[in-house]
């Protein structure tokens, strides 16, 4: 009798667990799994988004790497962004988090200021940076033309470099007098990456700051009593303690780089000079009406993000 009661209780518990998980499961299926499955299905079709579909097998996957679609250079650009995010953005975020986590004067204000770009709409940030990058009268041009090295302004140096590169084109382009920062292939990519890196420094900083704050103060105090400097405390106590958060930040930074879209789209409109996989996907789907090819890129993006997340996890596991 007692055994049956116990079994009934177990079954009831399992039903309860299932029912509690059901809403999340339904959402997960409807919002994530089914769309991914549909993207996989569309990626095997030739479809303009409206008319009848035609099964083409893996043709779309072959097509995405052709010159006409150009996913290869777009992935290369994303990987550059991922590297910059990991080795420039995250160290800056970590530095700020360690500094603020130590408990400096005005900690809350600095925290809010650094986090503010994350809260601002990307379109607004894009408009702001468009003004900064405006050729001739933009803030960047004015600033760089004011700094001189060897009698030549930094902007003039960049203009000369771009003109030299353009002179090597099959049909030499007329020389620039100012740098059209977002309109040429040599500077557009970097100009898109700078605001992306700037915007999300605060995001990673906040995650890492939370980690830094969770390190027991006794550990710091004990290290201080033993004569450790701030640098040594950070290196040997704080950073090892927040490794799981650093891992999450690296995964976010890398997958975020692979998925980046909005700011690049706002800054360079038709982003031929700074293509990333998402802009190529958008163009294929909504400009060229090639939903099959666009879906193939979407599937590849999902796979890439998954693979990178696994690799990062494996690296951190090995380190542990």
């Amino acid at each position: 009798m007692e055994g049956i009661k116990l079994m009934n209780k177990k079954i009831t518990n399992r039903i309860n667990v299932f029912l509690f998980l059901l809403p999340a499961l339904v959402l997960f299926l409807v919002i994530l799994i089914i769309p991914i499955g549909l993207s996989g299905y569309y990626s095997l079709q030739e479809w303009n988004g409206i008319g009848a579909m035609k099964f083409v097998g893996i043709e779309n996957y072959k097509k995405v790497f052709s010159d006409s679609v150009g996913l290869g250079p777009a992935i290369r650009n994303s990987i550059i962004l991922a590297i910059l995010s990991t080795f420039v953005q995250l160290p800056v975020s970590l530095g700020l988090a360690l500094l603020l986590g130590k408990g400096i004067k005005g900690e809350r204000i600095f925290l809010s200021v650094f986090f503010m770009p994350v809260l601002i709409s990307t379109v607004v940030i894009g408009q702001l940076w468009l003004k900064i990058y405006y050729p001739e009268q933009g803030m960047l041009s004015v600033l760089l033309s004011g700094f001189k090295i060897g009698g030549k302004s930094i902007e003039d140096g960049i203009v000369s470099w771009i003109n030299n590169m353009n002179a090597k084109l099959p049909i030499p382009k007329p020389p620039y007098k100012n740098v059209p920062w977002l309109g040429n292939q040599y500077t557009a990519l970097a100009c898109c990456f700078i605001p992306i890196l700037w915007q999300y420094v605060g995001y990673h900083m906040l995650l890492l700051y939370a980690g830094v704050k969770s390190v027991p103060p006794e550990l710091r105090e004990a290290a201080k009593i033993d004569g450790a400097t701030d640098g040594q405390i950070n290196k040997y106590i704080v950073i090892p303690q927040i490794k799981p958060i650093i891992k999450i930040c690296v995964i976010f930074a890398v997958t975020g780089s692979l998925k980046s879209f909005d700011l690049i789209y706002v800054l360079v409109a038709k982003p031929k000079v700074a293509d990333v996989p998402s802009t190529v996907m958008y163009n294929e789907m909504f400009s060229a009406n090639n939903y099959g090819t666009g879906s193939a890129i979407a599937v590849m993006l999902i796979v890439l993000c998954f693979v990178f997340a696994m690799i990062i996890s494996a690296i951190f596991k090995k380190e542990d």
Partner: protein
Amino acid sequence: MKMKKFASVLLAGAMVATMAGCTSDDTTTTTTTDTNTNTTTTTTDTNTTTTDGEKTNLTMWCIATESDSNRHSYEAAIADVTAAHPEINFTWEAFENESYKTKIKAAVAADEMPDIFFTWSCAFLGDFVDAGRVYCLDDAYAKVKDELPESMMGNSTYNGKHYGVPLTMNIVGLFANMDLLKSVGYDDIPGTYEDFIACCDALKAADIIPFGCAGKETWCVTEYLESVIEKSVGYEALNDIFLARASWANDDVAAAVDTFQSLVVNGYFDPNGDGLSNDEIKANFMAGKYAFYMNGTWNCADFAANEEFFPKVKVGEFPVINADKATLGQLIGGPSDTLAVAASSPNAAVAADFTFELGRLICKYGYLDGCGLPAWAVNYDDSEVNGLTKTVAAITAKANGYVLFGDTAMAADDADAYLKEVAMVYGCEVDGKTFVEDLAAAIR
């Protein structure tokens, strides 16, 4: 435990009900963000058409946002037509141009279109017609045939059936800042290509940039390129290529592309334009930075509205480059802005008549505002139309051939390939020969 079970069932039920509610298509609340003006408007409408007593509900989507130069013509036309039809309950929403292209395609794919929708003619509307999503307007058109010439219906006619109501029509105009031209000794826009080039050289020598063009928006480059090709090979040859009746593999077109590229290489274009949008280029032109600006004649309204700039600006036609094949009067443009009716509309016949009436009024107010030329017959006083638009009307009155804007005339994937090649020509990455070879291979 029972309470826990009850709570979990309740939560799960609420979640499922919420999700089921999301899929309901009876009533939707739509939020539109107009990125041009950074304003957000929220409207609630019924996405399906219902008959409410004696009133018939009709909905419309268009691109006449607050910042759009056509906004006033839409508002005025809608005020008139709704006043004349109290039996119709009319709701409309405007969306930003680029996002609208995506929105309407998604709506067509899901067969959840409004009763009336704005569209571009030729290939854009053609895809929707092919999918059977657009209501045939032949019966409604028969009632207004006297006011709307058949020639204006051509771009929205498929297999002999009419599917669109044209609004205004526009062409590519060569706008000139006459103050700058006068400063180098020209009292008028040069009439021959040789004079035109001599004028550009004189401007360049005087440190004035001849052309402004937004390299960031490839369609702006096509305004120049297509004019050069048309005035080199003739409108029939270009039309055949755009409408896929002839191959891009054409030596004359390759030579014309080289002619265009020589304008770039000779430094007639503002190099800073590579990184600027069309709005910025237009502002620079109005500020006196460039002597010429080739763009759609819809700009007449904005130029006329600027009291300081209006007296300086003149509009003309791009000169003929090869007189053996092209003549003056061969123009880029035509009626493209169109209203169409969804085949799924329960009141499609009513919507069709309403659309023609609305289209006629939008055309009227658009023309009076200077936003374009009338696709419909002008049977009202147009003496107040601005001088620039009147000049454009005079140019079109002498027109002997039109080629619709390439990216509108071609199917989406062809247009995409075309725009990519145009960007490469402007960026000096490929020459005319490679341009035609690449397009001949990409567009079959």
